[in-house]
């Protein structure tokens, strides 16, 4: 396999504001052509990391490479990355064409070439007719597309998108998510996308990096992030998660024996998703998604627990229940109706061993 140069690479990047580390030792490699999302709550450092890559926020220490070139000490106007801003930041006094051509103009491209490039971009964003309008005359969605075209026009190594859909309403957001993804595919550009919205991250990305307190908690595909979260924080951030305290009784190469609410249960060792491998006797946390909790007859190998239903909401095809186990753990269940609780509210529920993730206890969010 041929080695290709990563589009973006950060090595041990640290950014301090006084005593606070907004970026805390982040090493991240973004291969060329990838759609990578930095996902996290506000204040987790995702935007700061993006602005550091763009050059707006000089790093305290560490190295930033773009297209194999060290740009750590380069000002923004010399870095071959372009940014799409949440507020579009279109130049209000220039026509759409001038906006899109601005980057090419700065690269001292000949005029006819700029015009051709702008035409191609307008076609790409499917707005061929708005070229001579001013940004103030466009709708929110149109402005966002123009901002995308403007960033793409100078052919950067990578596009940096800072919550670009945040200012749009839900319907338009979803429409633009699809469009963004298809533009990314058709151009083959590397996209680094920042958002706090896990649905957005899941639906668009090749890779998701979940950030917390300036660190990357987990970097993986959306499927893996959801099914095999490395920490309780990740589990909770990308979806609803039940966290059940447990203990690791035995561990061998293939299987782990754990104790949950006084019951022993064997799960495959591969379900240990935490990066800190626990050893026998450690307290652990069992993560299970509400939709993986089932009612009724338990199949072979599944763990059955008993709880009391605290509340339930009927959602048409599904039912949402909040239970409390004998051990005092709250469990959310999302399932098909059936197997209703008996008169005193007690209910049995179960889950399969390949649906859980074993996290180390210390990382409980």
């Amino acid at each position, binding site marked *: 396999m041929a080695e290709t140069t990563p589009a973006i690479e950060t090595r041990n990047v640290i950014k301090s504001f006084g005593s606070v580390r907004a970026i805390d030792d982040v090493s991240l490699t973004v291969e060329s052509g990838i759609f990578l999302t930095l996902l996290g709550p506000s204040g987790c450092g995702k935007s700061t990391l993006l602005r550091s890559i763009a050059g*707006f926020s000089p790093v305290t220490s560490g190295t930033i490479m773009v297209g194999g070139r060290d740009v750590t000490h380069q*000002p923004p*106007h010399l870095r071959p*990355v372009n*940014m799409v*801003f949440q*507020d579009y930041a279109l*130049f*209000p006094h220039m026509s759409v064409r001038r906006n899109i051509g601005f980057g090419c103009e*700065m690269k001292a491209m000949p005029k006819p070439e700029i015009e051709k490039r702008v035409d191609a971009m307008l076609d790409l964003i499917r707005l061929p007719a708005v070229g001579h309008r001013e940004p103030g005359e466009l709708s929110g969605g149109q402005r966002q597309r123009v901002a995308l075209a403007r960033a793409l026009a100078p052919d950067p190594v990578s596009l940096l998108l800072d919550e670009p859909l945040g200012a749009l309403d839900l319907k338009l957001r979803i429409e633009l998510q699809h469009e963004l993804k298809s533009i990314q595919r058709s151009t083959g550009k590397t996209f680094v996308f920042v958002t706090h919205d896990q649905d957005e991250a899941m639906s668009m990305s090749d890779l998701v990096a979940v950030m917390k307190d300036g660190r990357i908690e987990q970097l993986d595909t959306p499927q893996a992030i959801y099914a095999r979260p490395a920490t309780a924080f990740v589990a909770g951030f990308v979806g609803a998660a039940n966290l059940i305290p447990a203990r690791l009784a035995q561990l061998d190469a293939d299987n782990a024996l754990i104790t949950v609410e006084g019951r022993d249960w064997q799960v495959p060792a591969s379900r240990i998703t935490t990066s800190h491998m626990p050893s026998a006797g450690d307290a652990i946390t069992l993560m299970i998604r509400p939709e993986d909790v089932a009612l009724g007859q338990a199949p072979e190998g599944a763990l059955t627990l008993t709880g009391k239903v605290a509340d339930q909401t009927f959602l048409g095809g599904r039912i949402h229940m909040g239970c409390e186990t004998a051990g005092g753990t709250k469990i959310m269940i999302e399932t098909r109706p059936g197997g209703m609780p008996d008169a005193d509210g007690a209910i049995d529920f179960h889950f399969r061993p390949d649906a859980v993730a074993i996290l180390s206890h210390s990382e409980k969010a």
Partner: protein
Amino acid sequence: MIKLIGRIALPTYFWIFVAWLFLPLAVMAAMGFRDSNFVAFPIQSWTTDWYRSVLTDREMSASLWVSLQVALISTAMGLVIGTPMAFMVARFTGAIRALLIAVIVLPAFIPIVVASISLRMFIGNFGFSTGIMAVAFGHAVSSVPFVVVMLLTRLNSMSTNLTDAARDLGADDFIVFFRIVLPYLAPALFGAFMFCMLLSFEDFTRSFFLGSFDPTFPVLLFAKLRFGFDPGLAAISTLVLIVTIALGLYAERFSRRRKLGNQGQVTAIGDNGNG
């Protein structure tokens, strides 16, 4: 009863006030048509000679030319100094900003006579004497605070993302300044330009203490008024008044238009003002 005050008394009072504002000006305009060498009412016979003759009056047109030169020079100085000053203030927040603004607007709080005289003594240190340049300098000192305040208002509405976006697309600071920042400030710059021109053109006290043998129009008018007046003065004053008010109204209208035109964009940026 209360309704009555609101509905009738208040508007009546307002229009009496407006009449009080404009009546003397109307009287002055009318006096310019009096067919006599003396100012007096009632006007029995009318003539347009005064209005025609002032246009050829050497002394008057010379003073208007001096006024215009002073206004242009001082406005240029005011904008060249005031623009970077606004940027400088915009860099700071809190106490430093408040302190900066305090020293910048200081000239507006010094009694004008005192301000003019202190400047006159000060330029003497450098061997400058009174004259057109001294007057222009004095006017620039008084107009800089207004330039700064007007530009700051506009700058505050400008998202830093706008300049960041330009830098991100490969523009260095000079290009950012000329291609992004200046055009964005254009309406405010135009407003400040007109305001400085009007401020300079109408000033008497600074021109009087800093000027020498080439009087500006208000200084010449003052000198003449102290020794009596004739309908010719009323005529020229009326012409100056008309031009001044027309320019002022045009400037107001222009800057208001621009503000409205940009509103869509400004609110779109404003949504994310705290982001």
